[in-house]
């Protein structure tokens, strides 16, 4: 029974990682850049939904939609101001810019909302009891897993079936060629950031429901874990991010339950190193040989 409980908490933790990882992987797949500010967009999403729900008294769903709207705008603005001018710059410059944006967002949140933690009200309350109360699954976990699966399927369909999705995949393969075929590359990348940031808002609300202490640094650690998950699953691959997130959550949870609460992070990263040694592109990643 403990095993099941650990598994459940691993899956729900993993689903949070997976939703964040989907945002990372989308942006990486299309813009070929690591958006390290993603974790902080999540934090902003958390704060916006907190303010909408607690200070303005809006219903939870409306609050999350507000957060999605604000984060979408924020994502597009960040992309336009910080990343677009560096489109042809070396990737290292873009990476450093992303870290800069991350600190900018964190410190802005510190200025606006202060450093005192806020206690987030979970988006759903209650617990599901199974096996006569021996196994309890919180409704937040169920919602997180469901949201994660819906988002993953939605994104897969979007990128494979719609015209915009196809444009994204084209940009991902070869920006120059896509442009020659009449695809507006800048608009496509903006759209990617918009989608990724909207996902970040959802992730923020779910993350804070799961772990209800909202601070300006809330997004950093889950952001790093989710980035790990994205690499684990194969960065750029949507099902890979999902799989990587869930697996990372389960490994972390079981390691904590059965081996040691102190070593769980070391174990997670040891597994990551082994996977990358065996499969350098991650679990579902495509290994593309360099054309000479």
């Amino acid at each position, binding site marked *: 029974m403990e095993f099941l409980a650990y598994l459940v908490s691993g899956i729900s933790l993993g689903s949070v990682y997976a939703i964040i990882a989907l945002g990372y992987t989308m942006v990486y797949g299309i813009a070929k850049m690591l958006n390290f500010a993603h974790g902080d967009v999540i934090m902003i999403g958390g704060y916006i939904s907190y303010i909408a729900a607690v200070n303005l008294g809006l219903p939870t769903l409306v609050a999350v939609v507000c957060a999605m709207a604000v984060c979408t705008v924020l994502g597009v603005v960040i992309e336009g101001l910080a990343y677009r001018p560096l489109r042809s710059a070396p990737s290292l410059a873009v990476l450093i810019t992303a870290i800069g944006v991350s600190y900018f967002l964190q410190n802005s949140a510190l200025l606006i909302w202060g450093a005192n933690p806020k*206690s987030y009200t979970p988006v759903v309350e209650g617990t599901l009891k199974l096996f006569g*109360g021996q196994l309890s699954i919180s409704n937040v976990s169920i919602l997180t897993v469901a949201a994660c699966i819906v988002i993953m399927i939605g994104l897969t369909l979007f990128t494979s079936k719609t015209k915009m999705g196809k444009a994204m995949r084209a940009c991902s393969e070869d920006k120059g060629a896509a442009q020659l075929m009449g695809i507006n590359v800048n608009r496509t990348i903006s759209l990617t950031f918009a989608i990724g940031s909207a996902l970040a808002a959802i992730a923020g609300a779910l993350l804070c429901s799961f772990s209800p202490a909202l601070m300006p640094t809330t997004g950093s*650690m889950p952001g790093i874990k989710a980035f790990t998950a994205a690499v684990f699953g194969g960065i750029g691959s949507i099902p890979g991010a999902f799989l990587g997130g869930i697996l990372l959550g389960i490994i972390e949870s079981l390691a904590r339950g059965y081996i040691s609460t102190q070593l769980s992070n070391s174990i997670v990263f040891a597994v990551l190193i082994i996977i990358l040694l065996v499969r350098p592109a991650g679990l579902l990643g495509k290994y593309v040989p360099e054309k000479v």
Partner: protein
Amino acid sequence: MKKTFAMVLAVVMVIGMLAGCGSSTQTAAPAQAATTQTAPAAEAAPAAENAEAAPAAEANMTFKLGSSGPLTGPAAIYGISVMNGIQIAVDEINAMGGLQFEFQSQDDEADSGDKAINAYNTLLDWGMQVMAGTVTSGSGITVAAQAYQDRVFMLTPSGSSVDLIADKDNAFQVCFTDPNQGIASADYISQNFAGAKVAVIYRNDDAYSQGIRDTFVTEAKEKSVEVVYEGTFTEATQTDFSVQLTAAQAAGADLLFLPIYYTPASVILNQANQMGYAPVVFGVDGMDGILTLENFDTSLAEGVMLLTPFAADADDEKTQAFVAEYQKRFGETPNQFAADGYDAAYILKAALEAAGCTGDMSAEEICEAVIAVMPTISVDGITGLSMTWGANGEVSKAPKAVIIQNGVYVSP
């Protein structure tokens, strides 16, 4: 009109100073003896001279009192509470006449590195003579090491780590040390929850949490309190406790001992509630503050117990007056940290008077003089009656347990 007022004010102030000096000369004699015994004669001499010369030369009895603590950041509630407490005490002391304090606080964000040292240096630049800081243990250990070299006397209101005072004759505490909290908690549990199965969740990258946990577990073994599960977390993993809680529940724990700060404690209470796990939760002074966490559902903390030397509902006159004043000024009920800060200012007043210090002495001179008298004084405060100190800086006073009911602390 203005001139007459100024004259009257000046006369009042002179009288006040003389009154203050009078009381300081009375107590100076034993202090002087003690100083010459322990400290080098060269350093003791000016202290004695100043004290004796005081009434004639209208000695300056104004001291610059500094304190540093987290005024922003996740531990801000402690720093702000302590500073508010000190401020109330300083205003009261200044209104009494005699010894006067000028008070300044600096923000160290509970950092144990350069931010703590920066805050301390800023205070020194301002001319701090005695320090009522720091608020947290981590920054206290850093600052105490520096203050030991600089010879600045520091009395920490709430820094509870043993390392803060270890091997440093200039550092004293108002609050209990971590080992004492662990021992007192284990004793209380063995007396009041006989046969309880205890689970401990602590943060193993934090000296405060680890320190309490270590002595708690040792004492629990001696008092045959059964510890069925121990789980850890670190700063990086303080967002998810579902595994630790599941394991504690599976081990049959009916009492959860949390020697941690209130922010992760609030997450634990939330997640335990989501799991439908409802053990008795027992905290230490770091739990204090959970009720003021923004938007925190206080019903989750219903029945949480914690050991604290201060209960705002105590019916003695001093506590009631302090609580009323605090509520008037800051609109909330003071916690233990505010009371620690309040007592710290009064303890420093008592020590400075007993040592016969004057405001024109340097921080070094005051430090030596006060170190000599600390083990000899006894102070009645709101966090304990007749508090006394060992030469190692540790306070001796009795803790008491409080329980949260309907969102307020009450004595069980």
